[in-house]
């Protein structure tokens, strides 16, 4: 079968369904949010349609700048750690038998069925002083008395990496499975060690996949708002937590919308920058 470029309008009809879905479920809600972000807040009440920029003005302060910076830093760290763990893991996974692969993938998919709430509460129990993992260490004689490992930055990071890792592996898996094994064989016959072959051949060959995965995990982690609340102290609350506070508890929709729009713009800019830098390097290489 030969693939032909679409000529008539009818050839484009298969696109209509996804386009309509995108409009209904993305373009319309997002436009509503942008519109609301310019509405006037009625203190103690709700909002009236208007065009004011106060909501953005309130956001531009050192306080919210700090929270935004922390949120971005946290999301970047989660992305980097996830890919650093998931990439070698997925590579080794593709080298195992079909049966082992299926078992692993089913287990990973089952982790995805857990909600953020369950993950958060499970980790808060695991990290607690009264029932947590340090009790095992005490029983093994490695620690003198049980300790609470939360709330803290380490706990937040662990919870978020745990949540994002299955996605990371599932995104990397197809690309690694399709990787031509002769590439590494050639490197090995030329005398490279397996580790060297992995770092010098496999990683560069899949650079685009890695960048795409980093971006996906970054965006995914940026939206997390429950885990920082359950596992962290207030200074570990992300911008998403404060957006929830404004929208749900303060009924300040315009300000919440303005913060959300700002967060989307900043993350789009970061993603764009990453792609730009990646593309330029490709051109010079």
């Amino acid at each position, binding site marked *: 079968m030969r693939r032909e470029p679409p000529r008539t309008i009818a050839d484009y009809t298969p696109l209509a369904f996804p386009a309509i879905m995108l409009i209904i479920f993305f373009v319309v809600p997002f436009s509503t949010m942008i519109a609301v972000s310019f509405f006037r807040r009625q203190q103690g*009440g709700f909002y009236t349609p208007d065009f004011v920029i106060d909501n953005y003005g309130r956001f531009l302060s050192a306080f919210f700048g700090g929270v935004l910076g922390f949120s971005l830093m946290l999301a970047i760290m989660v992305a980097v750690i996830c890919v650093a763990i998931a990439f070698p893991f997925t590579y080794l996974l593709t080298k195992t038998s079909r049966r082992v692969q299926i078992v692993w993938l089913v287990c990973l998919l089952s982790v995805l069925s857990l909600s953020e709430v369950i993950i958060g*509460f499970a980790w808060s129990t695991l990290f607690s002083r009264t029932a947590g993992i340090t009790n095992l260490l005490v029983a093994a004689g490695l620690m003198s008395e049980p300790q609470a490992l939360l709330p803290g930055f380490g706990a937040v990071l662990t919870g978020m990496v745990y949540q994002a890792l299955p996605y990371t592996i599932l995104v990397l898996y197809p690309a690694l499975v399709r990787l031509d094994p002769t590439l590494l064989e050639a490197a090995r016959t030329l005398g490279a060690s397996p580790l060297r072959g992995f770092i010098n051949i496999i990683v560069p060959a899949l650079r685009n996949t890695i960048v795409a995965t980093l971006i996906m995990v970054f965006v995914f982690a940026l939206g997390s708002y429950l885990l920082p609340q359950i596992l962290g102290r*207030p*200074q570990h609350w992300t911008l998403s937590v404060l957006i929830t*506070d404004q929208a749900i508890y303060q009924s300040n929709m315009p300000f919440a919308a303005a913060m959300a729009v700002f967060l989307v713009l900043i993350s789009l800019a970061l993603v764009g920058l990453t792609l730009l830098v990646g593309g330029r390097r490709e051109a010079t290489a």
Partner: protein
Amino acid sequence: MKELHKTSVSRRKILTVGVAGVGMLAMPSILRAQDRSLKVGVYGGYFKDSFDENIFPEFTKATGIAVESVAEPTGEAWLVQLEQAARAGQAPADLSMMSQTSTLKGQETELWTPLDPARIGNYDDLLEPFVAKYPDGRVAGIGAVAWYITLVTNTDVYPEAPDSWAALWDPANEDKLGLLALVSNSFLLEVTAKTFMGGTDALDTEEGQIEAFEKLAEVKPNVRLWYRDEAQFEQALKSGEIPMGQYYHDVTGLAAADGFPVRSTFPKEGGIQDSGNWVLSRASDKVEEAHIFIDYMSRPEIQSLMSRKVGTAPTLKRDKLDLTDEEFAAVSSEIDPIIPRYDLYTSKSDWLNQKWTEMIVG
């Protein structure tokens, strides 16, 4: 021109058919209104379960009005949902139990249908804080139940009960407290003012509020958890993971009765008294049923029943009730309570919220 005229006629025909169609579709709901019902929103979880089990069946038996209870999240979140729905002409619940702050916020947008005091038998016996009024005197909400937020401790970790809110500031309690995470539901500014500044009147001015914030900031090193979700703290309190904090008097009492090592103490400065009102969404057309419901819920015997079965404090005057001293002490206290400054959470809500967030996050 002729053709245009023709289309307009046929368009009218379509309209007529359409109206008839809508009318027919609406019929079942008219029919259903005959066996009367009321959708009532109450806080989900323990509250809703107790009401479903002990209170609503009695009401249906007495009046023939079926109650469909709706689980509502915390007041503020439910308020947003009710308001959005009312704008679309929908009422997810006719009557809702609504916190004082949320009742005031709803008043700003005229969300609540004014209630008629003449149709509520015990209106004159309601305690004064339990009638919410619009500025022009119309009644926006009637007290449903009251409850206390008190100082709670784990009895294994604290064999002696603390007797003052000042225990929250005690350096010995470093990293041991669980406190509510929002300025408008923790009422810690009021606690600070009553404990250290001579009363909640100290919060009248902005200087007073800033002073309270500064004093409250000293508590931060002691706080392990600022919770939004009650389950998060309750679990930690029971296990002793977080052995002290502020929590609901009724729920703590129930947990203690179930054998958990927890206790609730009314500090000498008083417990924080919060309450919920019955409010009627303006999108609801069940005005008649709503009044019958509120009248029933404000009867002394029902208020006593709720105190015994649900553990809430009554909204009627003490002498109208048949509660024994012991029963009364289980749900309330003679110590003068700390009454939250609800007015501040509408007039200065954004400023207070910003200051609060900066205080606990910074």
